[in-house]
């Protein structure tokens, strides 16, 4: 291996180490914030899901026809949502995600 190759390898090693250090530092500081952001986004998502599925829970939904069209796109999110709400299995007969 030539001297130039050695220098290139050493420089790449340093760059990787510095990158890891910066990533580690960011992880330390963002641990708390990441959790709060996820929680806030989940709250928003839960509200949206509730608005879409409110007629299935006995709450009249004036735009039910339109939200019905969204259901196929929401299958994965619906599964995560009902699990977050403490229901391990899908509560809806016609909407079996699990």
């Amino acid at each position, binding site marked *: 291996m030539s001297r130039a190759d050695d220098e290139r390898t050493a420089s790449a090693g340093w760059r990787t180490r510095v990158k890891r250090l910066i990533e580690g530092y960011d992880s330390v500081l963002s641990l708390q914030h990441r959790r*709060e952001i996820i929680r806030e*986004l989940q709250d928003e998502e839960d509200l949206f899901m509730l608005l879409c599925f409110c007629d299935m829970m006995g709450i009249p939904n004036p735009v039910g026809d339109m939200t019905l069209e969204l259901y196929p796109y929401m299958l994965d999110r619906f599964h995560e949502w009902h699990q977050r709400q403490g229901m391990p299995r899908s509560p809806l007969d016609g909407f079996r995600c699990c």
Partner: protein
Amino acid sequence: MNAIWIAIFGAVCFVMGYRFYSKFIAERIYRLDPDFQTPAHAYQDGVDYVPTNKWILWGHHFTSVAGAAPIVGPAIAIYWGWLPAILWVVLGTVFAAGVHDFGAVVLSNRHKGHSIGTLANKLIGQRAKLLFLFIILILVLMVNAVFAWVIAKLFITFPASVLSVFIQIPLAVWIGYRVYRHSGSMLLPSVIALAVMYGAALLASEIPMLQIDLVSWFGGAEASVVGGFNATSMAFLVWIVVLMVYVYIASTLPVWKLLQPRDYINSHQLVVGLALLYLGLFFGAPEMTAPSVNGEADISWYPLLFITIACGAISGFHGLVASGTTSKQLDKETDARMIGYGGALGEGMLAMIAIIAVGTLFASGADFTATYSSFSAAGSSGLGSFVKGAGQLAGNLGIPEHMGSTLVAVIVVSFAATTLDTAVRLMRYIIAELGTEYGMPVIARKHVATSIAVISSAALVILPEGPNGFGSGGYLLWPLFGTSNQLLAGITLMLVSVWLKRQGRPVVFTLAPMLFLLVMTLWAMGQQVIFTWSGFGDADRNLLLFTFGSLIMVFTLWILLEASRSFRQGGVPTQQQQPSSDESR
């Protein structure tokens, strides 16, 4: 004596404490099990319960517990000389704080990651939970009053810091929106925010027009609220009102909008501040000019020293963080030693540099005595002395002293403002919980609960009467803050002891610091309440402080009674998560 030797002495004690004492506690007392399934694995949900690398979790735990409190307490307590302060910080950290923080992580880890409040209910009963709630309420009320006083004092003493602190608010909101709406890392925007803040601070240090000096705006240092009635200074009152309006708004916003991004920026500031001070110390190698022991103190160091330095030696607040968030992210139970005990050592290092900054500030011992002429003078000028001393240490790195002082003032105010925001928010939740518990739904409403929290905090910071009338006695609240913090630590140590007793393990290592703390708290409050605040003999009566001091004494006795009752009932098994291996070994 050269201050470097003190730092080396402290560091060696901390290393020895970690290497030997924490190892002993981990192996013989808490009996950590590397195969125990931690709550982070058992209940992994990607939000609260997330197995996390121990170095990252240690950094997170340390930045969550470190703030302005381990700076203010030592800056006041150096009044009795640097030796008692350093000894209490070092010994308290090694034998009390380390065991306390470590124990809180382990206890919570063994109980599904539950917080101290829930564990109090589970291990002792409903009464203990109620006691916990009351102590937290008093603690956050004290925190609000004390930190509002700290910020107002620093804004008055260092007007160049105001602009930078207020610039942080829109920057934090910008970062909050950016990360919330577009994801991504906070690192780069927060570094830019920090650069803007420090740029503003340095500019304001040089350009008087950028300094927001309310003292000169409102008629000078002599201007009082009620002219001729010897009341609080006008500038102080205006700052308290501004801060309370600000904290009302800040504490009712969602956390991601202001609190979280500002906390992220503050974490950089903690790193910058510690690096600035320790590098300044090692490059400058200054002499300690403060006396090692102040023989002319007007009040004895015991028991007041042990409640004046709370955070930095031992703090109940750490138990809340350790059991609230840290324990839910523990990858392996054996990591608890480094995270819990190591986090306490980090805070000890911060307290130690605060003592060194004040101890090296003065040109001579006589100058120190002139500034720290009495305990009340120490309370009043301690924080300002720290900021100047820290500026002097930063001066060893080539930063002009007045600029260094402004930067340190910005750092301390930023810590205090975040604490204030968090504490008002917490107080709002407690008031709402009490309102729901006692059938008063009106006070459970967000704005009603926040109004109660803000108005009572403002009243508490303005009402204590000091040498210059109402509002100048804010420093009197510091020992009350210290005692309520120590009481909280006492509860955590009691819970850990009860758990150990039920496991049939030695309790002396957790019970001894608990009894020490409670005896010192009881002694200090008894002395203040009976001989000072009650109006006994020649002393002036202070009804407000008398009431709070008496309440704290009642709570201390309550804890002691609960502890003795729990120990008499020892042997009752507690519900706890079953480990994957034999837990009894």
